[in-house]
């Protein structure tokens, strides 16, 4: 990989050990993926925040670093609500370690916003054509597909290295030629639940780049759900929806695999609904709820009381921007939970059967929490939590 003089100096340790190490990470990845050079990034979004996922190993590494990030950088969800962790029955030892991780990131100049939806917090964090180093798979998908920015799916250390140096190796989705569709998916259905569609599509496409052709018009929240599910059931980091997202670069339609998804395919994803009787928790907000989604949930809950645990996960910034909406939701007995989610918090592990409306949570909950998961529509979830029908 070609390095500038300044980059060479960083690599030789002229500006300290932390930057040398960060450069070594970027150069090693550049070598592995045959990048020509490094490219400047607009922002970084760093995974590896929940103590549940990174453990003492991650805590030790981050704590040993010295320096400041060179570009705006924010965090992925932590393992608990940073303020209301006691109400989530998080134990003291976990909380202490989690707060130590947060402190270590704060020392490095990372903004302490723990969310998988950074694009809902700051519009300036990513714009069309910007290069980024983001880690969270659904945020990566949203940035590439909906915003039209360019990012690979970074691991925790590589995103942090990119944040410290302000650059990332130029390969993968940073290059136009890797952003052409590999599959054309025609959807012959009136889609209401994009998480279910994404769950199906991700399984089919794997790590490809699908172009959807559909008569439904997904809004931004729908696209958020679609991308998140495809990044979980497959490893899709970029997709297009004809007439809705940006146009793909020039591609050869004959080289694309053609796939049809029909109404009954989507309905089949919900088949497990029949055994939802023993659900003991309902969790919404994977990825974190937008303001519109919070308001929609508050409307659906209006005049009801929850009879089961109901969690609504969102970013602290979105929750704080809508105190009245949060109050309406919590007056029903539901909880609005910030900074964390049902997948990365150990608080999920004490339940036995979780109902979710997210294709992504549906994929991860069994393996990461040891909890049975059922996928339902948003209405199904609200009904299950309130005992209504």
């Amino acid at each position, binding site marked *: 990989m070609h390095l500038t003089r300044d980059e060479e100096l960083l690599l030789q340790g002229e500006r300290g050990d932390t930057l040398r*190490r960060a450069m*070594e*990470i970027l150069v*090693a*990845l550049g*070598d*592995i993926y045959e990048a020509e050079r490094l490219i400047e990034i607009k922002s970084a979004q760093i*995974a*590896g925040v929940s103590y549940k*996922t*990174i*453990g*003492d*190993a*991650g805590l*030790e*590494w981050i704590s040993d670093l010295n320096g400041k990030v060179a570009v705006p950088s924010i965090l992925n969800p932590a393992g608990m609500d940073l303020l209301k962790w006691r109400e989530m029955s998080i134990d003291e030892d976990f909380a202490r370690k989690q707060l130590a991780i947060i402190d270590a990131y704060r020392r490095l100049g990372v903004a302490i916003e723990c969310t998988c939806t950074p694009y809902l917090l700051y519009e300036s964090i990513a714009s069309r054509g910007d290069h980024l180093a983001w880690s969270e798979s659904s945020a990566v998908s949203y940035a590439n597909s909906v915003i039209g920015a360019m990012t690979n799916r970074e*691991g*925790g*250390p*590589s995103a942090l290295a990119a944040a410290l140096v302000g650059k990332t190796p130029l390969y993968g989705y940073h290059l136009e030629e890797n952003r052409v569709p590999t599959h054309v998916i025609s959807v012959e259905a009136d889609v209401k639940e994009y998480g279910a569609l994404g769950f199906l599509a991700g399984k089919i496409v794997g790590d490809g780049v699908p172009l959807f052709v559909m008569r439904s018009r997904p809004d931004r929240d729908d696209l958020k759900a679609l991308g998140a599910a495809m990044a979980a059931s497959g490893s899709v980091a970029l997709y297009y929806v004809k007439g809705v997202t940006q146009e793909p670069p020039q591609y050869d339609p004959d080289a694309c695999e053609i796939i049809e998804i029909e109404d009954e395919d989507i309905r089949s994803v919900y088949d497990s609904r029949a055994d939802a009787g023993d659900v003991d928790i309902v969790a919404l907000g994977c990825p974190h709820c937008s303001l519109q989604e919070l308001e929609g949930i508050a409307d659906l809950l209006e005049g009801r009381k929850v009879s089961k645990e109901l969690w609504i996960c969102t970013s602290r910034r979105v929750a704080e921007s809508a105190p009245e909406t949060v109050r309406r939701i919590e007056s029903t007995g539901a909880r609005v939970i910030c900074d964390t989610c049902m997948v990365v918090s150990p608080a999920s592990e004490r339940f036995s059967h979780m109902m979710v409306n997210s294709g992504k949570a549906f994929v991860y909950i069994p393996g990461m929490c040891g909890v049975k998961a059922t996928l339902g529509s948003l209405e199904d979830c609200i009904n299950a939590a309130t005992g209504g029908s």
Partner: protein
Amino acid sequence: MEVKCHKVSGGCAEGPALVTRERISFLGNVNPETGVVVDPSHELYGRSIAGAILIFPGGKGSTVGSYVIYQLKKRGLAPAAMINLKSEPIVAVGAIISDIPLVDRVPEWILDVKDGTWIVVDAKREVVVLPDGSVRI
């Protein structure tokens, strides 16, 4: 004999070879408190990787594996150096953040080296040094 390789993480170290043909997921396969391979389905089950020249095709699994390598190093339980056929980001990043020499792009017969063979990994010079006759080529 000297074998050419490609440096992923710098440094020079030597020790006895520990060889597997299976990929390693540091998160899950290796106990960070003991340095012992704890996954019963892994070829190296029950073996300690501490101080060894660990020779394996490459890593796999969760990116948290990079931190596990770091944790092993801090406890003095990490391999002295690692040799891959082709490094992937998890092991590469783990070696770099832990200052463990790691090289790749070596010939495949390196996986035929016998356990315990004394090996020098000089990532700086991009060579692996083995005793003559340690493998039949």
